[in-house]
């Protein structure tokens, strides 16, 4: 039954390959509509996942010799990515006119990146972590530079490529050091031996370099340099997917590696995590202040948001991990709403200067309201999703303040960051509602699927801000999977283990398949 565990991934891949095949027989004019087919397909997979995919009684299932894990955390992220891809695909249909050639390939590559994210959140081994991260990254190299007619898009692609390949080299070397010192690639095997390796500097150094690659994905300081340029240069739907999907996949793996594979070592890294979180928050917010380009501004703001979420990692508690998931959920609706509006308003614009939003209120009150609400939520003003997410994160960090005073400082810096961010978020809102002369007063047509997507995003922002309980239950259940697995590892680590001859590793068969934990 191992194949059934991977149903999300197979279905998404089949959908992507089906699109590429359908492209052969379709007239060029009909290709734009394939985006709707892709979106419908993703919606169907999401529905299937919610209705039919159930975890077994133990809450966790492994496949292929514990290479692949399906627990509540993985399932949470899989649905998260499907939802994000759904909105991104709808956005891409609106964006189709801007893509000269290879529209079907654009949709298919988005689906391949989605498949990479689905695999990444189920990775339980450094091999799968590496390969799925690379699938995401390589798909994004292509998606970023898809508008070949725009030099900016190509330059963004090259920059992403260089920095991405650099971080990959560090990650691989880091994995090599971890593997060389511990002999393990599997997260659970690693967790069993990690406590003995706390004093091994080479092992710690290797882990640090593995985190470089993940830090690149979530755009945490000091691996954030690519973010503003790439956010600005990439096609808007790609930027949205990068801001949501790529970042969330990075966080899924950060949580998995830090709290499943090496929890004992993470516990000693609280200082490092606090400093990185604080610097990331300050850097993102301060650099966003002078920005005039909306996408670049959101690029810096996404760095700041990575910093807020790292606060939850630094808290080293189940509450912190749950808060990250909650924050990501709110961020999903907020960022998708913002980029959908950007995608519609600045479709034919040469630049994405904030001034192009002027008069948006007259041109389309709905889009104006959605963008303004998104900015309010990003800033973290009640009653929007961003407020409650930040509240949970700060609460989790403050709960740890008794053990270490650094947490008080961290929350103080985070609140300072929020105050700074009010200035530039409200700059955007002022541009929307300022009664000035719009550069182009014509009303903006909004198609029905996009209308639905915007309403859903706005509803999501309000729901997460006003009725947090259902989602909090969901995220704390997902975060508890990490704790349960850690506990299970410590339970088995104390048992004597039969030495295993390395060359004669048990091959996977029905009899020797990894036993699922009770």
């Amino acid at each position, binding site marked *: 039954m191992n194949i059934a565990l991977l149903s999300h991934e197979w279905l998404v891949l089949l959908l992507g390959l089906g699109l590429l095949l359908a492209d052969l027989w379709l007239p060029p004019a009909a290709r734009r509509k394939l985006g709707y087919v892709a979106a419908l397909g993703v919606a169907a997979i999401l529905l299937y996942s919610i209705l039919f995919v159930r975890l077994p009684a133990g809450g966790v299932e492994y496949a292929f010799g514990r290479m692949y894990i399906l627990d509540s955390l993985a399932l949470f992220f899989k649905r998260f990515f499907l939802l994000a891809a759904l909105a991104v695909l709808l956005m891409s249909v609106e964006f189709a006119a801007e893509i000269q050639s290879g529209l079907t390939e654009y949709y298919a590559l988005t689906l391949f990146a989605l498949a990479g994210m689905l695999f990444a959140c189920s990775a339980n081994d450094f091999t799968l972590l590496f390969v799925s991260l690379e699938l995401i990254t*390589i798909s994004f190299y292509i998606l970023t530079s898809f508008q070949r007619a725009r030099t900016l898009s190509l330059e963004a692609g090259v920059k992403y490529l*260089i920095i991405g390949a650099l971080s990959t080299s560090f990650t691989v070397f880091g994995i090599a050091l971890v593997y060389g010192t511990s002999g393990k690639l599997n997260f659970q095997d690693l967790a069993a031996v990690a406590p003995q390796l706390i004093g091994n500097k080479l092992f710690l150094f290797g882990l640090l370099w593995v985190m470089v690659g993940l830090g690149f994905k979530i755009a945490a300081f000091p691996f954030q340099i690519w973010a503003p340029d790439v956010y*600005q240069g990439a096609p808007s739907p790609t930027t949205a997917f990068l801001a949501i999907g790529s970042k969330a996949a990075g966080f899924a793996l950060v949580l998995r590696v830090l709290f499943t594979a090496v929890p004992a070592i993470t516990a000693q890294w609280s200082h490092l995590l606090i400093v990185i979180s604080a610097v990331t928050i300050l850097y993102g917010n301060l650099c966003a202040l002078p920005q005039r380009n909306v996408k670049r501004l959101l690029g810096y703001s996404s760095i700041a948001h990575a910093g807020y979420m790292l606060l939850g990692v630094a808290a080293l508690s189940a509450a912190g991990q749950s808060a990250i998931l909650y924050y990501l959920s709110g961020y999903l609706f907020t960022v998708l709403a913002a980029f959908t509006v950007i995608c519609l308003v600045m479709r034919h614009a040469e630049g994405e200067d904030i001034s192009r939003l002027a008069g948006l209120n007259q041109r389309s009150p709905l889009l104006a309201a959605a963008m303004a609400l998104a900015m309010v939520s990003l800033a973290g003003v009640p009653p929007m999703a961003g407020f409650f997410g930040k509240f949970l994160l700060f609460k989790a960090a403050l709960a740890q303040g008794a053990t270490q005073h650094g947490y008080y400082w961290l929350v103080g810096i985070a609140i300072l960051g929020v105050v700074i961010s009010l200035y530039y978020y409200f700059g955007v809102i002022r541009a929307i509602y300022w009664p000035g002369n719009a550069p182009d007063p014509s009303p903006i047509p909004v198609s029905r699927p996009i209308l639905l997507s915007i309403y859903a995003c706005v509803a999501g922002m309000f729901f997460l801000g006003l009725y947090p309980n259902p989602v909090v239950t969901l995220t704390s259940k997902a975060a508890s999977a990490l704790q349960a697995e850690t506990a299970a590892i410590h339970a088995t680590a104390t048992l004597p283990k039969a030495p295993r001859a390395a060359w004669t590793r048990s091959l996977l068969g029905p009899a020797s398949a990894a036993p699922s934990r009770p």
Partner: protein
Amino acid sequence: MNVGLGHYLVVSALLFALGLFGVIARRNLLVIYMSLELMLNAANLALVAFSRFTNNLDGQILVFFVITVAAAEVSVGLALIVALYRKRRSAHVEDLTAMKL
């Protein structure tokens, strides 16, 4: 003198540092990309050496994955660099207006 794991790892670290130097110091995008490949190869050497001296096959399998991924990345990366060159008629980092490394 007996050749041990340390010798291989020092060679690997040297190659990695050389690649890093090339990435930061060279101006031509293609050479920068070559330097990145050198860094990846250095990591592979470390993996193979560890695999051999700890007598564990997993490292070699991971190297197979890394090499294949690198080949895919090279094909995309070079296509991208060539496309940018056609557009800008330059392959120097300083000529990328958006590049503020």
